[in-house]
């Protein structure tokens, strides 16, 4: 690629310049602070090389919050540009880059890592395990995600961001129509992060299948663990499709193959198919764990067992199977045969059946319960009506003949924001607040939390509800501006106001993290809400010790911790401790992933030597790992006693 030296760093845009300066200042401040407080060793030894699932979970969540900020700013920039007609806040090229990165970041670098972070922290606790099946791999997963994220995110200051949409449709995304490094960032950033996701999939699938504590049969697992298991299964079968598709487009752009190009008899529509064969299961990857989180919270704060547990399990399994059979509904308008469109219409509508079953089961979990309105519960309750609005419009979109009118419009945009925000984002907030005392030893302030909730919910509806009508009025998605005579001004303006309300709520949420860290009372027991039902609440201290359970709990039924409390049992007390075997930390994943990032960055600019050097480096780290026979270490009985005594004070 003939990239000129003065095109390497993006210049000339005040917004980007501002971002560049703040990133630079932010990095300098972080480095200075770590040096001043002598925290480098602590950071490296306690966190970056840690194989502890709890620490990895927290690192995932912090990265995801950062990405929620970045993706949110992208969203606000889009809404600002669309607030009034003929706006000149962003030029079309910049707008295209912003909505492309908004989509990728929110799905791949926000929603997934946020949920994977919660899964990392909670699932091993819920199955009564001391760690995951492959702790080394877990750290590697985090690092590949992090490096992929970093690579993708620097695109807007170095070389230029991808601008072909988060779907990267060919032929638009081929070299002929998207020259420059932008789309390469998309391909390599997602590829590197995707490898990590696949490893997470394998890791947690095996963890849940093989490492459940004594007595916990599959049908005694918590609903969050169930949804995680099924999600991981979807990841295992869907992510390789993405890996291949990305590799194929990378070959087209970097090595001259002609798979999706207009020349050489390529077939651009193959990309569209492959993308959605991964893409549709992907939306269930981000929604099933959310369902799990809501199930936990609703059941906890209604003080009742989840209604129709078996039906819930059956419905998530059904959803996971159907998720692989509906991808064509993303392009009903491709001129498919009537038979094909009818088939995929019906399979898509069929997904609403198990989903509807779940909605009613959640409602009836609260029936004859004792509902307390804590913040996590509020988010979970708000999920139901909002998700139903998103869901029913999904059924409308599934009707292919009508979809010809909704496709590519704000009706669709509104639909998927309704399901993804009220599903995934609400779940992330709900889950984080719910498990916050488990992670940090204190709750988030409830009063501020309620302000956040109400501002966000109102902002969300004000932002996205009008968009249904914009869609029906013919406003296509991805346009960077519109004309006064289009008649879309009023609703667009309202929508922008709503978006800024959500932004405000996010700021207050971050403030609440600080406020609670300073002022919230510290929890004294493992069961912070007093209503815990599953094993994550059965730990001896609020933040579980490194080894989670001094003695692995035994389970006899659903909601095991509730059961123990009813029977007045404390399995962690007055027992003979045995030494606990734990895995050792490792620096290999961090080094290996940074090398991946190095290779990826080189390939973005067609600097093949960097790719080769990086690849050799990666192989060397693999060899190092292969010869590593470190079997971990034992925590002595004295140390366990000491830790447990402190916890039971």
């Amino acid at each position, binding site marked *: 690629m003939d990239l000129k030296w003065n095109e390497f760093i993006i210049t000339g845009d005040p917004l980007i310049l501002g971002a560049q300066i703040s990133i630079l200042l932010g990095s300098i401040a972080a480095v200075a602070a770590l040096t001043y407080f002598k925290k480098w060793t602590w950071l490296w030894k306690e966190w970056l090389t840690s194989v502890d699932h709890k620490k990895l979970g927290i690192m995932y969540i912090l990265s995801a919050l950062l990405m929620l900020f970045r993706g949110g700013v992208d969203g606000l920039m889009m809404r600002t540009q669309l607030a009034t007609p003929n706006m000149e806040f962003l030029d079309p090229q910049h707008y295209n880059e912003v909505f492309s990165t908004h989509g990728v970041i929110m799905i791949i670098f926000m929603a997934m890592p946020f949920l994977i972070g919660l899964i990392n922290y909670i699932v091993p606790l819920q199955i009564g395990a001391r760690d995951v099946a492959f702790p080394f791999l877990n750290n590697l997963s985090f690092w590949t995600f992090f490096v992929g994220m970093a690579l993708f995110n620097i695109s807007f200051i170095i070389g230029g961001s991808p601008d072909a949409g988060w779907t990267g449709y060919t032929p638009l995304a081929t070299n002929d*129509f998207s020259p420059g490094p932008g789309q390469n960032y998309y391909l390599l950033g997602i590829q590197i992060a995707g490898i990590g996701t696949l490893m997470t999939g394998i890791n947690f699938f095996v963890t849940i299948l093989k490492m459940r504590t004594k007595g916990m049969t599959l049908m005694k697992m918590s609903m969050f663990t169930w949804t995680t298991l099924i999600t991981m299964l979807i990841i295992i079968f869907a992510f390789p499709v993405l890996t291949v598709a990305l590799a194929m487009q990378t070959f087209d752009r970097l090595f001259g193959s002609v798979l999706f190009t207009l020349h050489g008899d390529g077939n651009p529509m193959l990309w569209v198919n492959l993308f959605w064969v991964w893409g549709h299961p992907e939306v269930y990857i981000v929604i099933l764990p959310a369902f799990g989180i809501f199930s936990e919270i609703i059941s906890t704060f209604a003080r009742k067992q989840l209604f129709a547990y078996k039906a819930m399990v059956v419905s998530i399994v059904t959803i996971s199977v159907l998720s692989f059979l509906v991808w064509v509904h993303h392009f009903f308008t491709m001129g498919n045969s009537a038979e094909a469109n009818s088939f995929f219409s019906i399979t898509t509508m069929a997904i609403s059946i198990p989903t509807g079953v779940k909605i009613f089961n959640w409602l009836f979990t609260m029936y004859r319960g004792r509902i307390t309105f804590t913040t996590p519960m509020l988010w979970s309750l708000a999920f139901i009506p909002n998700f139903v609005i998103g869901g029913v419009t999904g059924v409308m979109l599934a009707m292919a*003949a009508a979809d010809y009118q909704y496709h590519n419009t704000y009706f669709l945009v509104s639909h998927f924001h309704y399901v993804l925000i009220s599903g995934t984002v609400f779940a992330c907030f709900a889950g984080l607040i719910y498990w916050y005392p488990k992670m940090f030893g204190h709750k988030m302030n409830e009063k501020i939390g309620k302000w956040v909730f109400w501002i966000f919910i109102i902002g969300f509806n004000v932002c996205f509800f009008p968009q249904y009508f914009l869609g029906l009025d013919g406003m296509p998605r991805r346009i960077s501006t519109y004309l006064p005579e289009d008649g879309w001004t009023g609703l667009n303006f309202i929508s922008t106001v709503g978006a800024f309300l959500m932004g405000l709520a996010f700021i207050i949420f971050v403030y609440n993290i600080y406020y609670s860290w300073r002022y919230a009372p510290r929890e004294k027991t493992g069961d912070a809400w007093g209503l815990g039902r599953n094993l994550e609440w059965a730990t001896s201290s609020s933040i579980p010790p490194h080894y989670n359970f001094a003695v692995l709990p035994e389970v006899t039924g659903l909601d095991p911790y509730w059961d123990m409390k009813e029977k007045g049992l404390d399995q962690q007390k007055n027992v003979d401790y045995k030494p606990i075997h734990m895995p050792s930390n490792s620096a290999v994943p961090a080094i290996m992933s940074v090398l991946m990032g190095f290779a990826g960055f080189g390939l973005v600019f067609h600097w093949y030597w960097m790719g080769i050097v990086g690849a050799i480096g990666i192989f060397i780290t693999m060899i190092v790992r292969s010869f590593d026979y470190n079997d971990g270490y034992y925590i002595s009985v004295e140390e366990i006693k000491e830790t447990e005594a402190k916890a039971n004070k």
Partner: protein
Amino acid sequence: MQRENGTFVNSGKERKGSRRMLKKLKPLSLLLFLALPLMLAGCSTPEVLDPKGPVASQQSDLIILSIIFMLTIVAVVFVLLTIILVKYRERKDHDKYSPELHGSMLLETIWTIIPIIIVVILAVPTVRTIYSLEKAPEPKSAEAASEDPLVIHATSINWKWVFTYPDEDIETVNYLHIPIHRPVEFKLTSADSMAALWIPSLGGQKYNMAGMQTTLYLQADEAGVYDGRNANFTGEGFNEQRFKVYAEEEADYQQWVEEVQNSAPELTQYEYDNLLIPGVYDDGTAEFNGTHLQWIDHSKNAEYTLEAWDRLGYEPKNPHAKDKSQNILPEDEIPYYQQDNTVDYSDEDMDNNEHAHASHE
């Protein structure tokens, strides 16, 4: 137990808050529910629900049918949720609390079967409409029945529309004239990126794809000027890729055709190839005598645009390049244009449909 204490203290504080919240929640959900019809009534009817032809009205009917069903579902869930939240919120005398209740065969069966019934009810008209949209709309009168649909090739080019009337041998850029009460058979293709032809007032969209042809039937029953555009993202000039549709009486339409035939300049291949260079059409609209089909049918040859770029000296450039100037060669410096490059697509009609479908297998 500690749990009991903990929650009682907790809920005492929470309860005031929660009751206040419930009061807020009810009007909010009510507001949401009422907002839909209000917004429908308040604003002018959205374009999609104000059909101007048989295709759009079939779709509009389907949409309204589905909205009715969906509003019912939303209403049921909202009402149920509100009742449950009010009735079973934490209070001092929780005599209704029955934690042992966690399943009911009857209820579960009901809410499995009802959605199945709704899906079936919606699937039938959906499938029927899908099939119906694959054919030209049914003619209303015997006179209209004798007429074949008007064939127009709609070719998307970054970032403009070229409409070709093969039987009339004319071509327009960025605007369209059609007679009313007569089905129009759009043959869609693209010279480059994937686009979608969409005229909301007349009916839904379909993709334009290079190297493939798709067919879209539309018809206007009311004279008027409608907005049409590319609905599928194609890059920098995507916004501007729109056009006006002039739907008029048959006589007016014929008059327009004759005017173009008599007064429009002849289309040259060099001029057409220049259209293939990505960009917004500076002159807004244009019309030509003769069509580009004499040299190229993009549904048969996806590579043509790239070849034309090569001939003209156009090079795609990094959007962040400092120097984005292009050096397009004048016609007389390119030997290619001095020769006759006419292509014969006479077997066109035979494999049209096969081609469009085969490419999706």
